[in-house]
Every structure is written in structure tokens, then in C-alpha cells.
């Protein structure tokens, strides 16, 4: 059954591999260049300094890599892409009715489902972990300068990309088994994915821990903190809460993914046609 599951997903897994290789080909040279420039200009010593030399060096680093750093913002959609690549084949199979082929061979439906979901979740997790590791490495100099609790960094690094990917898998499977049509299901899943991500980032994540309040403006906040509100009074989350927040966000999205996969399993098990 593992062979059949792999053979049925082969094209999509190859596509995911191609994307991973392409990003590696882009990120490794640019990442090495960025780390080299960071070391050459001795930016590590400049962190938190306001001497003219340091400000100049920071400014030139920023100008040089601004474009590609901004471009990596789009990587926040990679979990959705990987989720679709791994989960959509099962939705297509159920839509085309080819699952009936496996269901009338000599294996039980449970084994079929466990193998399918196993390949989808393990594969999606592995590819998401590779990408997240690559991007986290690539962004290390940028994080030293700007911090990694800010949403632009937080969403691409550590372990949350894996949780987002599983969430996307769950959305595609649940939408696919409820709507029964692959294309609308992927559309609905994409819209829900972006909506939930934005809502969590805006309204939920700032409250994972009580924020710290300051009477002064943001210049008084510690370096690399995530500024939630600045102005006459400032609210921020300290940078050392990065892994705590990563953990909370990961558990939240993995739990949501588990519920969505549960819906899909229930829909598949009670399928009547």
C-alpha cells in the first residue's frame, strides 16, 4: 500500500522537491553572501551601537539586501503550497472515484487511510522542516539586526512553518471531503489559511503572554523586541519569548490541523458513494 500511495503522489512530491531545490539554489549563495557581508563589516560588534561608522555599515547592509529580504516575505505562502501539493492528490482521487480501486483490492479501508494520511503528514512535515531550517539559517544575520519575534521573521522561522503546513494539509483534506470537488476545495482552503493566519497574527499572538508596557516611546524598549504599539506609550513583547511563542503557535495550529484531519477521516469513513 505504501508503494501505491507513493506512486499516486509521485508527481506532486517531485514538484515539491523541485521547489525545495530551487529555493536552496537561491538561498544558499545569497545566504552565504549575506553572512559574509555581515562578518566583513563587523556588524556583530555594531549591534545596538549608534556610532556613525556602525550606522553607515548597517545602512549599506540594509540597502544591499533589502530587496531579497522583502521578497522572502512571500515564503509565508510556502506552507500552503506544500500542504496543497501533499493533500490535493487524495482529494482528486476521491473526486475521480479511483479510491474504489484500492477499496476493492484485498486491503482494509483502515490500512488504506492510515497509509495515505501517513505519507501526506510525514512528507509535508519533512519538506516544511527542510524549508524552515533553510530559511532560519538564511535569516540569521537579519534576525541579529531586527529581531525574530516580529511577524515578518516569526512566521518563516523555527517550527511554526511546519505547523502551518500541517494546518494547510488539514484545510485541503477537510474542504476536499466536505465539498467533494478539488478546485473549489483548494480555493476555500487557501482563503481560510490566509484569513486564520492573519487573524491569529493580529489578534491572538500578541496576547500569548502579557505584553510589557512602557511610559516612553519605542526607543526605550529593549532591542529586538516585537513592538505591538508605539507612540506616547509603548507595548512590546521581549525578544526572549521567541521559542515560547513558537511553541504556543505550533501547538495551536497542529491542534487545528488534527481537528481538520479528523473531519476528513470521518467524512471518508462515512462516505456513501
Amino acid at each position, binding site marked *: 500500500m505504501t*508503494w501505491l500511495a507513493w506512486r499516486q503522489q509521485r508527481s506532486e512530491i517531485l514538484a515539491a522537491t523541485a521547489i525545495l531545490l530551487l529555493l536552496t539554489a537561491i538561498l544558499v549563495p545569497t545566504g552565504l553572501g549575506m553572512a559574509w557581508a555581515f562578518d566583513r563589516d563587523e556588524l556583530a560588534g555594531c549591534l545596538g551601537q549608534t556610532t556613525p561608522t556602525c550606522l553607515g555599515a548597517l545602512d549599506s547592509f540594509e540597502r544591499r539586501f533589502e530587496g531579497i529580504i522583502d521578497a522572502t516575505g512571500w515564503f509565508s505562502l510556502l506552507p500552503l503550497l506544500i500542504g496543497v501539493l501533499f493533500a490535493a492528490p487524495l482529494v482528486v482521487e476521491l473526486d475521480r*472515484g479511483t479510491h474504489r480501486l484500492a477499496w476493492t483490492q*484485498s486491503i482494509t479501508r483502515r490500512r488504506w487511510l492510515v497509509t495515505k494520511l501517513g505519507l501526506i503528514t510525514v512528507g509535508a512535515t519533512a519538506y516544511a522542516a527542510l524549508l524552515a531550517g533553510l530559511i532560519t539559517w538564511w535569516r540569521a544575520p537579519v534576525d541579529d539586526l531586527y529581531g525574530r519575534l516580529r511577524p515578518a521573521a516569526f512566521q518563516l522561522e523555527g517550527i511554526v512553518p511546519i505547523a502551518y503546513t500541517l494546518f494547510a494539509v488539514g484545510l485541503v483534506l477537510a474542504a476536499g471531503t466536505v465539498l467533494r470537488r478539488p478546485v473549489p476545495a483548494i480555493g476555500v482552503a487557501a482563503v481560510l489559511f490566509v484569513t486564520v493566519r492573519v487573524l491569529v497574527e493580529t489578534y491572538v499572538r500578541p496576547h500569548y503572554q502579557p505584553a510589557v508596557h512602557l511610559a516612553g516611546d519605542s526607543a526605550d524598549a529593549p532591542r529586538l523586541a516585537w513592538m505591538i504599539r508605539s507612540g506616547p506609550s509603548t507595548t512590546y513583547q521581549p525578544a526572549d519569548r521567541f521559542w515560547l511563542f513558537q511553541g504556543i503557535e505550533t501547538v495551536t495550529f497542529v491542534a487545528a490541523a488534527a481537528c481538520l484531519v479528523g473531519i476528513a477521516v470521518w467524512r471518508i469513513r462515512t462516505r456513501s458513494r
Partner: protein
Amino acid sequence: MTAPVTVTGPTTRSAVRAVGLGKRYGSRWALRDCTFDLPAGSVTALVGQNGAGKSTLLHLAVGLTEPTAGRVEILGSSARRQPRDVLPRLGFVAQDHALEPRFRVADMLEVGRRLNPRWDAALAREHLARLGIPLGQRVGGLSGGQRAQVALTMALAKRPEILVLDEPAAALDPLARRELLRMLMGAAADTGLTVLLSSHVISDLERVCDHLVILAAGEVRLTGPTDEVVAAHRLLSGPRTEPTAVARMHHVVSENHTDRQTTLLVRSTRHVYDSRWRVDEIGLEEIVLGYLSQTAPGKDVTE
């Protein structure tokens, strides 16, 4: 009084048994109160118009669908609840063949080999070679008839005890259809294979099938061995009348009126005393058509 004596011949094992089987989609019953028993080794035609519930019945039998009411057993077990007992002994060909279009024919055979304990790879290759279907071809690039043959090959290579085919002839040209039926008949005779196949045409099944299940509007209208079905029906033709007198003595299945003439399909072996009626034997195909054109549902069982 003494208890009635039942004389039983050699006991026939049941291959497919449905008891009060029903399936509802929303508020509509696709199949209702369906009861029949097909012996092992029989070749049964499940006949009915499109939408009569044939596919629903077959999907219930092979365990793809959960019944809303009643139960259905294949070789004594439920394909849904005891898949390990049933699935290895069952070959099923879906109406749309349910093959992976992206796979090559050889990949399909590999699927069969890996998912079935008694897969006969030699039989599969031989069968496809005889039909000239190349193993390297993608399933999506095959003709409808070739896909049907690949699906059938996969079912046969499981070395099943029972073969369930949903409209197997639909995608085949007349020659291939005849070839298929001849092969099924041969397999049934040689190996005791039980065959249950659905069709909306009966013409070429008549020579092949020894049992019949007629389905109309989700209900079983008639079931029984074909020779008994044929023996139990008569065609009466006579001057145009309302068949009230006949209906008192004989079960009228369907009636047909022209300006001058009335033709009745009756299920009865009793003598027709009214000499105005001409009594004729009637073929299986016309019997089936008579039941399918029946407006008032009534379940009849010929044992």
C-alpha cells in the same frame, strides 16, 4: 398433523444474499427492501434501466457503500464489516473502471500484485498480451474498451471466487462483448466462479445468465433462475379488452393495447380457458421488458 417434510437437493452455497437491503440518499431511496439469494456458481444478470439502483446494489454488495437498511453478504460475510474474509475472494469492476489515469498498465498490475494475496501475474500479462494492450501505455491514453479490459484483468488476476461487474459490456464493441461473455461463461463452468453482472440490455445476456434479478425504481421486481422465469410466463394476445377477467385467474405483469388488440404478459402456468386469447411462449428479453415497463410496483419472486 406431522411436520412438513422438506426435501433438499445437494445444498447450494449462497454467493450473494441480500435481506431487506436498502439505501437512502437524503430523502430518496435508491434501493429499497431488496431481498434475493444467488447460489455459488451462478451467473446472474442484474437488469434494470439507468437509475434503477443497479450500481447502488453492487456497491453495497462489495462494501463500497454502507446500507441504510438490511444487509448483504458475499460468500457468507459482509464485505463492509469483514473485509478480510471477503475482499481477497472478490473481483469487482466499477462502471467507470476506477483506474488511475496517470498510471501505466504495468503500474496497475503492480498495484494488484502488492494489494492482493493470491495475485496471478502470469494470467494478467497473458490476458493483456492476448488483447494487444501494451504494458507501457498510460491508462489515460487507452480506449474505453481497453480500460474495461484492464479493469477486468485486474479483477480476474485476483483469482476471485466471485466476480461483480457493473455494466461490463457498456464500453465494449459487440465482438469484445461476446468474447467477454464467452470467457465469463467458461470461467463459471470450469472453476465454479460466481458472476454477478449488471446491464441495461438483456439481449446478449440471455445465453449466458442462469439467474436474473430485475430492478426497477430501486425495487426488485423479479428474481429467480432464468429457465423458471421463462417457464412461468406467457404472452396472451386477443381482441381489445380490459383484462379484468384474466387478472382474476392470472397475474398480469404488463398490458399493451392497440386499437384492435390487447397483449398481456402474465405470470402463470395455469390453463387459459377463454379461447379468445392466443397463448404464446415468451422469451427472456420480452419478459424483462414487460417488467421494466410495469408502472405499478409489485415484488414477485419466482422460486
